[in-house]
């Protein structure tokens, strides 16, 4: 077994499978002609998947975004969720550092996706114009759903991805979540140009923890935003 788990394609593949399983929408009935056989759900647009994956892989950025949202809305649940992440070792233990958002990242995603595509857990369909890909669609097959469910049920380390993916999707798309208002947040529309440049996007856990402390103090003193 390789010690370099960062480049472990099976790990990336299973994370992507669980993410797709969590955020994909049912293909619906009647099934369209372009929908692969055995497909049960679909996720359109690669960039969206990339952005969801970013929150999944970087709990410190997710917590920082939750604090931003708390500053604007004053919803205590957001401060509590950020607190749960930052008070734990999640940012250090669960983070999967990724390259800066560059087009080259696709290859990496493709490599992981190929692990899912070969046994037909996910089927990728590309809608092309004459010259370039307009949109990718990621279809989850029944077999993919079964493997994802099995992974969530059997391995706690993997179940964490499903839970976190569902939370992120609920935040971004207002799909409903315990104690969360059904409000669509703008996370997915935000660009990553503001994130520090470099080969690896660095952790902002320390900075986020400082913000958390300051906001908690302000809240306890009654300076709650509404």
């Amino acid at each position, binding site marked *: 077994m390789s010690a370099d788990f960062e480049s*472990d394609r099976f790990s990336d593949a299973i994370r992507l499978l669980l993410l797709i399983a969590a955020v994909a929408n049912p293909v619906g009935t009647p099934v369209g002609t372009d929908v692969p056989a055995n497909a049960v759900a679909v996720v359109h647009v690669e960039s969206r998947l990339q952005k969801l994956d970013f929150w999944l892989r970087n709990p410190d950025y997710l917590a920082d975004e939750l604090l931003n949202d708390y500053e604007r809305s004053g919803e205590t649940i957001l401060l509590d969720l950020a607190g749960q992440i930052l008070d734990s070792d999640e940012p250090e*233990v669960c983070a999967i550092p990724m390259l800066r958002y560059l087009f080259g990242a696709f290859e990496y995603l493709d490599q992981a996706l190929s692990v899912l595509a070969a046994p037909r857990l996910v089927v990728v369909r590309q809608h092309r114009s004459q010259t370039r890909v307009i949109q990718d669609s990621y279809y989850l097959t029944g077999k993919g759903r079964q493997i994802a469910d099995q992974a969530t049920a059997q391995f706690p380390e993997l179940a964490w991805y499903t839970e976190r993916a569902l939370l992120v999707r609920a935040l971004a798309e207002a799909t409903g979540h315990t104690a969360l208002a059904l409000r669509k947040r703008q996370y997915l529309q935000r660009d990553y140009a503001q994130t520090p440049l470099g080969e690896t996007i660095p952790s902002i856990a320390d900075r986020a923890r400082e913000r958390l402390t300051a906001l908690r103090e302000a809240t306890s003193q009654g300076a709650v935003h509404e």
Partner: protein
Amino acid sequence: MSEDLSVPSESELHRRITTRLGDADPEEVTAILAAHGLDLTPPLPARRELVVHRLYCEGVKRTGTTAKDGPFTLDIPLGPGPWVIASEINSAGKSSVLWALSFALRGEGFAGFRRPETVGWFHYVRADIEVGGVAASVRLTFERPGRPHARLLSADALPALLALEGRSDEGPGVRVVSEAEPPEVEALISRFMMDRLGLRPISVWTAEPGAPKGEDGQRDSTEQVHSWPSFFYALALNSANDTILLGPTTVGQLPVRLMQLFLNVPYASELTRLVTARKAELQEGSRIARRADEDTRAREQKAEPLRAALVDAQQRLRGLRDAQPDITALLQAVERAAAQVVACQDAHQIAAGQLEAARKNRLTDQRAARRARQSSAARLLLGALDPEACPRCDHDIDDARRAIEDTDHRCSVCANPLPEEPDDPEAAQAALTRIDDRLAASQAAETRSKAAADQAILMLKRARTAYAEATAALAAVRSGEAFTLLEQTQKEVSQLQGALTLAAGETTGVLPALAAVLSEHVAQPAGPQSLTDERVLAVATEVVKEVVDTHSRALFTELNGEILSIAQALGVTNLGSVNLNLAGHLNAIKSGAKHPYASFSPVDRLRMRIAAVVGMVRVGRRRGIASHPGLLLVDAPTADEVVPETARQVIQTLYDTGNDIPGIQMIITSIESAVWDIFPKDRIVTGVNGRELF
């Protein structure tokens, strides 16, 4: 006389005093005696003689009942020898005439002769006298009853004065010597008589009424000076109720002093003045001591609150000083605490660094463990799946190609040889176990580091607290408030000490300036000089008293015989003996028993008095010494005498006395019929038909 009655000279007395003092310097002794106004010169011979030659009175009689009221004039020629102012009736004015004469001779009417109703009748009294051989005329003009204006005339010879008519005061050789207004009349006459008769005042010592008693139980006393008005009691005799042999009082043994005076006992007067001076000296000393005592007590009382305040302030000062730790120790304590903080900070930094490193290790291990499990799970889930389609072109992978993987060990998708991957589950599990073990080890290390870091934090916190306390203690000591309080209290103590020194008058160990102030307030204790004064006076008194006592005893012994014979002649019955002593007691034996003077009847007391005075005159004449002036004014010597024979005997004795003793002038008043037989007519002063004199 076996006793030595020679009179020692002044130098002899000084020699005796100096000898008895032992180591005294004669000059110093003389100086001390002189400083007290004491000169011990022996008495010079004096012509102690008083003779009345004429009594002239004017007045207005106002009885309000008889036809005799109106102006009157009395002009009585007198001289040496016996005289009687006689009448056959009472209230004829006999005593009043004696009173008028006594006024002129004494400067104040003699109380024993005074008849209140007649005092206001006298408007003018003139007495022509010879005093010590000098002719004089006393002129009293009464503008108010008993309050005369006095004029003293003198002349070269008596006849020039006697020749003057009535109130006339101008004549050949007559001159006005002195004049006095009412308050000074007594002093003028007294001075004149004392000078002329060579008499010196007698000082006696009288306790002050209500004066505090000293430690010796003696009250403070004042000096009473007796002069002519008191001496006059040896000239004017009456049958009064008082029980004093001679003089107005027994205080200070005045009767004895008067007898010594008229017996011319040498240094008798000087002795009284010595006693007085010594008593004054002692009394002044004891007064100073008492005042010093009282001052000390008052100062102590005044100082008491100060003392209490000082004790309180000193106590507070001690408390403040005790509460002020050594600043060096405080500085050292702060330094030590600071060093401890630095050490703890270093230790804490190291512990924190170690904790951080341990945490990072643990996080790395935890992350690795998580990834390993994820990877393991992913491989378990995905690695065993058969490929169904090409990820590139999505074409199905058929069974034939899948079989190649098993048979030829080539990829069913790309047909390349499969990598030689040992698929050893045990090795994989062993790898996971190693990772878990490493995580457990790093977790334990983090726990240990955490405990060490917590301990370091605790130590640092304690060190910081200790530092804060040390700096606070130093700041408290250095704070202005505490320092000011200490200074204020110190100042308070100093002020109270100064005030207490002043109030209590304690001069030992004080600043020179303060001692100088105190020396002005505090009475200095009696110095050696006054002690010497006291000793000199004491010894001088002793020496002089011996002379006085010796002479007195000798003269009194002689006088006793005279008194006894004269008293018997004057009709004092059953008188066995008298023994006059130096305390003034007559010690009479009457009817074989002791008979105090106070127990004699009033008339016998008068006769004893006459006997004493006449005795003194006789002793003096016999010894050839100036003694009694020779004038006797005796009012009613036979009053209350019921036996006519006795009365006659008394009158006869008095007449004989006045006749026989040279230099005696005896003027008596009497209503006895015997006087008409015994006294020649020219020696009888009386009114018409033996009735009112005026």
